[in-house]
């Protein structure tokens, strides 16, 4: 029996398998380097990068919730220049697809970021975060409006020399409308879902737990919502969908693929089990072999509904 082909192609970029570490949960890659062979991943998305360094929101920034967690990091990051100088050299030495997640306060900033990444080697794809609930302006404000989403996409696509993934917010009435808008504006793929907006209250102090009051909910708790949005979106657009939200094991990952995802991202699970992503890859490989699935891409959208 021949080995299953786990390779997938997203926007012309070949990934050795459909499992990608999600932005904000995998640092700049090197944090996990000691724990497993990062090159075994299909890809990794770095923490969202902005033009200038950002210190992020006041602590506390993390609170556990039932089967999930809220974060209000606020896109703390080292900024574009430091990223290129300090992190990219390590990343460009990897043999896995490096995806740079970008975040701007304005359409202009998004475009500038895309422009600044031009010509740099070691980057495979750009992921545009228009869906972060943790920042005042920009972020989710763009992602909840199809028109604005399209304008951001257009600005990035026209400046970038790499294919562009747009990362969608689940905090909308109809995610398909946003997905269609960014597809039309030139996105090569969409990724979803970013976190659901949520909050925790400290009963003792009668105040919000998070320094920023609100935060983004991630982890297994949101999996049913994420699966539904992936399913719905995949049926509505022609570009690939990268699915995420609460994936902790290979079974979860396969559910997203069957529902319509071409690839998946692993976020919060990295915190619980730093080897989550490699175990997902191994599990998918075994599933394909047991079930005589020649190519993982054959499973994408194979749901009978």
């Amino acid at each position, binding site marked *: 029996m021949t080995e299953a082909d786990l390779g997938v192609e997203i926007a012309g970029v070949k990934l050795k398998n459909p499992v990608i570490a999600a932005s*904000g*949960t*995998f*640092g700049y890659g090197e*944090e*996990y*380097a*000691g*724990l497993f062979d990062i090159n075994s991943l299909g890809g990794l998305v770095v*923490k969202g990068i902005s033009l*200038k*360094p950002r*210190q*992020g929101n*006041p*602590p*506390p*920034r*993390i*609170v*556990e919730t*039932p*089967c*999930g*967690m809220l*974060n209000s*990091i606020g896109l*703390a*990051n*080292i*900024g574009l220049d430091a990223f290129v100088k300090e992190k990219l050299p390590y990343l460009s030495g990897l043999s896995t697809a490096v995806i740079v997640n970008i975040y701007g306060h304005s359409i202009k900033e998004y475009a500038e970021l895309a422009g600044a990444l031009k010509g740099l080697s070691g980057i495979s794809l750009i992921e545009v975060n228009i869906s972060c609930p943790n920042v005042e302006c920009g972020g989710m404000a763009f992602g909840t409006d199809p028109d604005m989403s399209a304008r951001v996409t257009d600005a990035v696509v026209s400046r970038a020399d790499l294919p562009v993934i747009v990362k969608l917010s689940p905090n909308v009435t109809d995610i398909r409308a946003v997905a269609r808008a960014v597809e039309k504006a030139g996105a090569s793929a969409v990724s979803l879902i970013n976190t659901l907006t949520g909050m925790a209250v400290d009963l003792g102090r009668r105040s919000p737990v998070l320094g920023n009051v609100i935060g983004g909910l991630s*982890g*297994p708790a949101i999996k049913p919502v994420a699966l539904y949005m992936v399913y719905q979106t995949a049926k509505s657009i022609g570009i690939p969908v990268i699915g995420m939200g609460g994936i*902790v094991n290979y079974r979860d990952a396969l559910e997203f693929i069957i529902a319509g995802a071409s690839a998946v991202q692993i976020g*919060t699970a*990295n*915190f*619980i*089990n*730093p*080897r989550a992503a490699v175990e997902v890859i191994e599990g998918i490989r075994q599933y394909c072999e047991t079930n005589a699935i020649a190519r993982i891409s054959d499973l994408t959208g194979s749901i009978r509904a």
Partner: protein
Amino acid sequence: MSKACVMDENSEVVFQRKMADGVFLMGIESPGIAATAIPGQFVMIRVRDGLDPLLRRPFSICGIREPGVVLVLYMLVGEGTQILSRILPGERISVLGPLGRGFKPDEKDSRALLVSGGIGIAPLIFLARRLRSGEALFMAGFRSSRQVIQVRSACLVCPEIYIVTEDGSEGERGLVTDILAERLKGAASERGRSSIYACGPVPMLKKVASLSKEFGVPCQVSMEAHMACGLGACQGCAVPGKRALADAYLHVCKDGPVFPAGNIRWESL
């Protein structure tokens, strides 16, 4: 920045022992972690399989017992520590570590002043055992006698141990920082060659930091923050810090948990 090796060990719990009201000492067979851990470093423990509670819990390493057993001294707080306390010897848990930057004892110290509040004693017990040179003075504060964790046997290297309780039910009455203040005031001669190593609740650490400044005694503090990754990847464990960079937060799991007291913006805590 050489990177010490972090391990995720599926470790057997070898014993659990009650040490005080709601405080337990757990021995975990984690040879990889035991081999390289230094005082002040911590581990992230997954208290059970399954999805709830979701996140790992951070605990200071309280000591190493040869061969390969990591000691964790923990206090019951919520669901995670409750579950931990019900684990029977022979069961296994996942332990990630050693993590973070530990204490950097000054080889030239003539005297190390170890100051702890409550469960903050955990990393200082480990430190006390590992101090190479000089003498150590251990000041451990607790609310009341029922919370007192007996350190005498653990800290053979400390000729002087002060137990302080807020209600005076054991040892001296008062706050551990009062004793520290007295000590610093009294022994002016020592100051130049002493360092403070502290761990405990924020109000206590604030006071310790201000005393260290007042008396010009170097001070290292071990801090806490809610954590998701423990690896420097999520930026969740921010504490207000002083830095050359624009980033005005330090991260407990990566920049700490042990910080020079002067690097923390205490006024923002």
